[in-house]
């Protein structure tokens, strides 16, 4: 069943007299529970593509469908409601709220989506335990290591059990150990049926996915089916977990 479909997606910027075609006619389909990696060099438009899919940016032209509903024409408030309930984001720079505790960073989106205080607290505790940071629930994000912060960011993205997790270079700022931890988590999530679109420039990370799209100059130049993150021509999840 198709969860997300993007058709002829364009995002052009004008810089002075030059038109930059950050995304230049990308077609993309993500099935429910599928893990798609988008790989390419810096500046190829992969992060812009992710921002378009999550409504953080607006396409110049093209269509975005979530389930069967066309969503690219939604207003800002409509996209906000979608992100609140159906789309989770993980960023390279974690983007946690510095002056909220770890627990409050997780609870805020749940409360925003209408969960009661008890429900959001229970869900946050459950996720923090699963992510191995239950003991750090009451500290500020600045007290955590990079890997721990990214785990908090993943927990926050999962609080409302989104249909789609969009991850923008989630391991880009992490050392190899933390990268391994984060990839284990993403692998477990995928195994549990979570649909993920992950953007990376790292081939080792990209090959965890079911399908790998290679983007260059705003266009998909290659698409490879990888086999569910269990086999990778470069480095599989198993390899990573053993490192």
């Amino acid at each position, binding site marked *: 069943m198709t969860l997300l479909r993007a058709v002829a997606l364009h995002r052009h910027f004008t810089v002075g007299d030059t038109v930059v075609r950050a995304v230049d006619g990308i077609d993309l389909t993500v099935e429910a529970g599928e893990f798609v990696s988008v790989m390419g060099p810096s500046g190829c438009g992969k992060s812009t593509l992710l921002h378009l899919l999550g409504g953080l940016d607006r396409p110049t032209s093209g269509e975005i469908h979530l389930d069967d509903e066309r969503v690219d024409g939604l207003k800002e408030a409509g996209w906000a409601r979608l992100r609140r309930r159906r789309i989770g984001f993980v960023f390279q720079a974690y*983007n946690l709220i510095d002056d909220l505790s770890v627990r409050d960073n997780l609870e805020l989106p749940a409360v925003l989506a209408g969960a009661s205080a008890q429900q959001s607290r229970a869900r946050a505790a459950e996720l923090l335990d699963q992510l191995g940071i239950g003991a750090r629930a009451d500290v500020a994000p600045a007290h955590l290591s990079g890997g721990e912060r990214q785990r908090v960011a993943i927990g926050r993205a999962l609080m409302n059990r989104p249909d789609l997790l969009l991850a923008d270079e989630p391991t880009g700022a992490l050392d190899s150990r933390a990268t391994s931890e984060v990839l284990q988590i993403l692998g477990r999530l995928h195994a549990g049926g979570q649909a993920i679109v992950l953007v990376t420039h790292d081939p080792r990370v990209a090959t965890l996915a079911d399908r790998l799209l290679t983007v260059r100059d705003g266009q998909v130049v290659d698409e490879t089916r990888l086999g569910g993150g269990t086999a990778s021509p470069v480095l599989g999840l198993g390899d990573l977990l053993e490192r």
Partner: protein
Amino acid sequence: MVRLAVRLLASRLRRSRASALLVVVVLATTGAAGTSAVLLRSAVTGPWDRAFAATHGAHLHVAGFGGLDAGALAALPGVAESSGRVVATVGELRHDGLTAGVALVGIPDDLRVDRPAVVDGSWRPGAVVMERSFARALGVKVGDRVEMHEATVEVSGIAVSVRTPGYPATVPGRAFTDPATAAALGRGGPQLTTVGLRLARPADEAVVARAASEYGMVTTASAIRAEALDRTRQFQVVLASFSILLLTAAAFLLVVLLGARLRSQSRELVILRLIGLTPGQLIGLVAVEHAVLAGAGGLVGTAVALVGGRRLAETAATSLGSTAPRLDLSVLGVVGVLVVAAAAVSAAAARRPARAGLVATTPARPSTATARALTAGLPASAALVAKEVSTSRARAAATVLAVALAVMTSVAALGMEATFRHEGRQAAARAVASAPVAGPAVADADGSGLRPLVYWLQGALSLVALASIVAVGLVGIRERRRELAVLSAIGFSARQLAGAAVAGQCVLAGLGGLIGIPLGVGFFRLAYALANGSSAGLVDAPPLHLVAVVPLAMLVTGLVAALPASTLPRVPVAAALAPA
């Protein structure tokens, strides 16, 4: 190094044009407030002495109904200059149904000592110039016609004179014309002759004593000055207080704005250190940048204030019975002070990012207010409001203080209004008890002169306070750009974020209002006691009005805070979330 500094400065200003423009606008407001305060101070300082200088006033007046030997008076030892004989004819003057006693003074062309200073219109043969307080009481303007002994004559000017403390302190009122017209209009009425003397030593008691013993009716300038100043003390205290408040507000705005701007740039400042700038160079760069912005803003603000503030100073001077203060280069000193203050304040604010460790070692403590809101099961927006109020103490303090200042002056104005109303009712009761006559209005029995000034000043102060709220809001959005983008990414709509920002400001405004009320009551009581010598007759603002001030302050703050909040949808979420 200088070349590098200039390049960095130019690039910083070019890159953050909107922020620089905001700073210039707010600094212009600061400059305008500062210039207005200086103009007001100059109007309030030595009002009688200014009018005395403008009229080349006499230190000693000798008056008599018979002939006065002006030559003998001028020859007295210690007399430096004499007006010669100046003759006034006493009669009645009518205008617009009002009748009042008048001393019509014949002013010789060559009169130098105690010559009334025309502040509106001009001298014209055959026309009269009215003394300003008398003209105001009768409602006479330049171009009107007044009636005296059944002859009508045009009023060609309004003048200031320090011969008396002014109408109605001294009756009859005074009008001036050429000696021939005075004689013709007077038609044989009683004549009063005066000789004004300027003394070599203004406080020469011997001359005064001799003139009093030999010629009888003697008035000294120092006695007139004391009476005039006593009558205008209320104005003086109120205006002086407001000028100090305006200066305080201007300084407050400067500190708030520059502090907030530098906080929003702390990351960039750290990067400049990473590329090799020493803390001293960084502080110098920031100081020069803000001095440049302050110079631009100060010039704009001073130019604006010279139009609006000058009118204010003229009105204030008129209320004090004086001439308008002379504008000199000291007004430009405001720009200089602003430049130096901006450099100093920004340098002080830059010390922290300039000297802090390059890697954060003291992370922020989590907001307990937000945690409590979440635990209590409050909606997410309420949790955001709690965060808004509790996490940026400097921003919160700026809003609280700005509102407290505006509320304080509003409460003082309400107290003044209540007191004037009370005095007005008492005056009306007295008038009913003692058969009213169709005489001229007694200036300021009902505060008609003081009221507009106080409201004007209160409005100016409130504008400064509101400008701070807008500036703090805009800088706050810039400072929290990434955080707002994060909240947007997890599902908050722009409307929810704007609503939380506005609600947070309203909560702070409520707190500011609660602080401002007792401050305003205290300020009014103090100003009243200083102006009147005691608190007798003082009436505080009605409690209902005071209670209404807080929600009103919250409402106005909410409306004003909505301006910066309305820019939230324009925060580029994707760009703000990109790794730095």
